[in-house]
């Protein structure tokens, strides 16, 4: 019979990974269900954390229940490793789990991100955790969450197509910027979190697992590796990513990556690659230092690595012109 002293854990201020064993077990169960149901929002009991809800608590809970002592964690906020939010989350994760931290996308086993997917392609075995403010893609067309759940159950997404059509007739193009809705594994409509449209294709047939978690809304969902993720579009009017052509990074001189726009006092703009870990590597490379720059989702010419996934707009430019708004004139 073991003694009480043998059974008791040493006294300590925090559990490993901050969350208690119950919380981690619950999150882990939900994550497994989320992986088995790509794009389906699994409810979970979002725990209190020492940061406020809405500041990445969903992603943080997932990261804390995933991280082990052998992990290497990268945390980014809109592509930046050095923003206040990212730096604080990274320090907290490292203090609670003892993980190593990095800014190198290829060296990280776990990447927690607010609203960006790194430019370099993630590999098999890596896990991307996206923080989600609003997990419900139907909220814009159906504010009642019970009815939205029924619509997901029925795969009834007609209102989304109607909304898309209305955007076309009003504005001549799809106006949704970030969190462009996608259909995952031909079944569930999913919000990919407010990543730019530029990043949305990166989820399609990716080598890595993506976990998305909304702490305030208490739901998490997943995109497993090698899973179809298609943005909603029409057969004759296509989804398009943000046009980055002609933009040159002020630090590295690189083009065809997702850029931050820095307005200048003279009315012009400078551009800088939004992924700071990637800039870091390019700069090192230009200085002649050793740096392994990984394969990127978009090549130098701006071509996406899954050829044919992003359809050319050349052929349908004439068609989309039919949808351009008629300003200041009546219909004939």
């Amino acid at each position, binding site marked *: 019979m073991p003694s009480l002293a043998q059974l008791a*854990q*040493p006294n*300590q*201020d*925090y*559990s*490993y*990974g*901050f969350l208690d*064993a*119950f919380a*981690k*077990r*619950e999150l*882990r*169960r*939900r*994550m*497994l*269900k*989320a*992986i*088995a*149901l*790509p794009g*389906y929002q*699994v409810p979970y009991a979002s725990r209190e954390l020492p940061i406020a809800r809405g500041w990445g608590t969903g992603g943080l809970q997932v990261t804390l*229940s*995933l991280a*082990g*002592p052998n992990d290497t964690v990268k945390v980014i906020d809109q592509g930046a490793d050095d923003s206040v939010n990212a730096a604080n989350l990274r320090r907290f994760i490292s*203090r*609670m*789990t*003892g993980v190593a931290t990095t800014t190198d996308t290829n060296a990280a086993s776990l990447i927690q991100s607010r609203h960006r997917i790194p430019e370099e392609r993630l590999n*098999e*075995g890596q896990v991307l955790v996206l923080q989600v403010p609003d997990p419900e893609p139907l909220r814009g067309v159906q504010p009642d969450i019970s009815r939205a*759940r*029924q619509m997901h*159950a*029925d795969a009834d997404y007609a209102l989304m197509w109607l909304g898309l059509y209305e955007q076309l007739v009003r504005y001549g193009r799809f106006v949704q910027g970030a969190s462009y809705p996608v259909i995952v*594994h031909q*079944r*569930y409509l999913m919000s990919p979190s407010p990543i730019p449209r530029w990043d949305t294709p990166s989820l399609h*047939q990716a*080598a890595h*697992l993506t976990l998305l978690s909304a702490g305030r809304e208490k739901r998490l969902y997943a995109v*497993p*590796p*090698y*899973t*179809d993720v298609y943005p909603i579009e029409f057969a004759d009017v296509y989804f398009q990513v943000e046009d980055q052509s002609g933009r040159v990074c002020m630090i590295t001189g690189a083009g065809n990556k997702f850029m931050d726009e820095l307005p200048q006092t003279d009315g012009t703009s400078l551009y800088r690659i939004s992924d700071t870990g990637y800039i870091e590597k390019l700069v090192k490379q230009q200085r002649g230092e050793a740096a392994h720059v990984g394969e990127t989702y978009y090549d130098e010419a701006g071509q996406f690595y899954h050829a044919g996934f992003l359809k050319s707009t050349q052929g349908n430019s004439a068609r989309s012109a039919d949808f351009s708004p008629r300003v200041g004139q009546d219909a004939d």
Partner: protein
Amino acid sequence: MLPLLTEPEKQAHASFIALMQALSYPGRPQRLPAAGQPAFVAIGEALVDLETSYHAPDPELAAAIARTGGRQRPVHEAHYQFYPQLHPAELDSLARAPVGSYLYPDESATLVLGCTLGSGQRLRLSGPGINGAVDVQVGGLPEAFWSLRAETVRYPLGWDIFLVAGDQVLGLPRTTVVEQL
């Protein structure tokens, strides 16, 4: 000071990572921190607690998992089910294991089944997590199990399965299409 990773937590973490990778990449065996019957207990300890229900026909295993605080429930109710050896006679009752509902497809059974890997029935797997298709050999399961699974999975409804052989675990989420070769 860094919080201590206690031995039970370390094992639960290792089991969970193996299960997560197994489910993310169906057809690729992952290594559990325990082998044989203890592997089933390790999975139970990683996933089951007093918020969940389980079913294990083997009394010894059931007693070990009961220590997690989970509630033992009959086949048609339990969310986590453990069969180190699935007998053909059990298939009729297994057919009633929960598959979830369209509103809550996550309220379905997770089956942990003992098997042999590398011998027996040849299967071709395809679906999410698999780049194209992958062939595996799974033995030690009743022959009718695969047709039962095919009848039960009506995506998004269905079971999520972990196949355990020694310390190896193979994930078979409901999204995986299984073709018997």
